[in-house]
């Protein structure tokens, strides 16, 4: 958290404003910035989405390929989610191996999709134990202004929801690519909502400034039946069980709102 004098001053100011029920940018505590979601704008990716959430800007690409299955699931395809913190996104981000935050981002988005069983991986088997179809979901951060998890989760869903995956043909254990494509079928539509705690208040869609000074956050991923698929708490504080329930309430309300925007972008 506040590690230097600037962020301490920032924290003080943000605290003051939040106590009045408003945010630095005039939003309410549980109000998102404007979502702009565009899908299918990349020709070479099989699925794509661009999400702008205020000044946060991410692009998600879906590609497929052929790979080998995990030993314990010889007939199931493999989905991989990877996040890239590009150096264009923020003055303090540098080229190089992904920071821990990027790994957490990818894993939290991945966990939501996987736990909700968005894809039926059995449909992606090709040659048992040898070849399966891989589905890669790459989260690409182009400009950072907070709340990457929610932006990427919505972007991943939007990209997958509109993806046309190429079809593969299996002939005597040989797998070849065809020109045909098939719409990727989604079995669930999970959306992550991150609730940040600043002092005693809970806010959604924290900006980079707010994230810098927040105490901690809880990300809750819910599907369209309002089932919980994934939770991730982070930050050096604890939450009481009642606070967690409160976060789940906020998340369930917001997830529905975001989902309708994602689906409308198709």
């Amino acid at each position, binding site marked *: 958290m506040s590690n230097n004098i600037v962020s301490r001053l920032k924290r003080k100011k943000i605290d003051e404003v939040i106590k009045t029920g408003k945010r630095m940018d005039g939003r309410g505590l549980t109000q998102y910035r404007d979502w702009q979601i565009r899908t299918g704008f990349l020709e070479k990716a099989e699925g794509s989405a661009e999400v702008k959430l205020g000044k946060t800007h991410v692009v998600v690409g879906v590609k497929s390929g052929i790979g080998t299955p995990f030993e314990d699931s010889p007939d199931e395809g493999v989905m991989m989610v990877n996040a890239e913190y590009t150096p264009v996104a923020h003055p303090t981000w540098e080229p190089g191996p992904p920071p821990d935050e990027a790994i957490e981002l990818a894993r939290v988005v991945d966990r939501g999709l996987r736990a909700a069983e968005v894809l039926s991986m059995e449909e992606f088997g090709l040659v048992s134990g040898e070849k399966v179809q891989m589905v890669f979901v790459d989260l690409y951060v182009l400009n950072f202004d907070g709340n990457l998890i929610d932006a990427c989760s919505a972007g991943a869903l939007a990209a997958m929801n509109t993806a046309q995956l190429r079809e593969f043909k299996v002939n005597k254990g040989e797998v070849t690519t065809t020109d045909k494509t098939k719409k990727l079928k989604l079995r669930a539509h999970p959306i992550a909502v991150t609730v940040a705690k600043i002092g005693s208040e809970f806010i959604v869609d924290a900006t980079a400034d707010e994230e810098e000074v927040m105490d901690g956050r809880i990300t809750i991923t819910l599907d369209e039946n309002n089932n*919980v698929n994934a939770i991730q708490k982070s930050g050096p504080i*604890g939450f009481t069980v009642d606070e967690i329930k409160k976060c789940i309430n906020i998340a*369930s309300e917001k997830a529905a709102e975001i989902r309708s925007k994602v689906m409308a972008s198709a």
Partner: protein
Amino acid sequence: MSKTRKRKSNKTWERVDGRKQDELRPIHIESGVLPNADGSAYIEMGRNKIIAGVYGPREMHPKRLSKPNEGVLRVRYHMAPFSVDPRRSPAPSRRDTEISMVMRDALEPAMFLERYPRSAIDVYVEIIQADGGTRCASINAAAVALADAGIPMKDLVAACAAGKYDGKIIVDLGDYEDKKGESDVPVAYMPKFDQVTLLQMEGIMTREETEECIKQAVEGCKKVYEIQKEALKKKYGMIQGEAAAPEPEAEAEAEPEEAPAEETQKPEGHVDVDEPEEEEKQ
């Protein structure tokens, strides 16, 4: 036929290892097991075998990572190649990185880092054998190791998972239950402050079930907490000689130098605890 079988099994529903729904696996914790470390602990939680070592507070190694106004807690979770089947690469995976992060966030609320400007406290956790719920077991060992290092703490951090298996809410999932179950909710908890410091979840559950899992996991944590205190009392009870019976206050604020009188001194409890599993894939 599968129907009848199901009905039958419902009557005498039993966990794979015969435990009750809220029963933890046997837990054994020993503190001060590594001579070179400032503090250490070994935990067996079911078949999990995990060792945690603490070094520090000490000078921060790459100095640029130090903070001028507070200490930095660094946690490294690492699995031995032979701890799981099949063998895994000893190189840290993305999973390890994430678990290290959430463990740090789970332990940090219990620390007084503002007392150690420019310093580092390093917590190293090695999974010798994994049996489901390694992150919770690791937190349990790490908290005891921190106390064993004589580092003042606001409270011990106890961890335990709950989850849903075969439609039932169960506590402290074993490896099988973790892999085959519907969901898994690892939780870490500081009983003195009633605060949840680690919370993750994966699976499909209604909101009500999720909340119930968190509640059950917290109850599990309270049982683990007693065992953690026992482990510390055992070691420091011995050092203090037989002054055993009534445990003195021993406040958590003690300076790190002197004989670590942690808030560890408390009643004893004998509880069996275990942990839920984590996804082992990459």
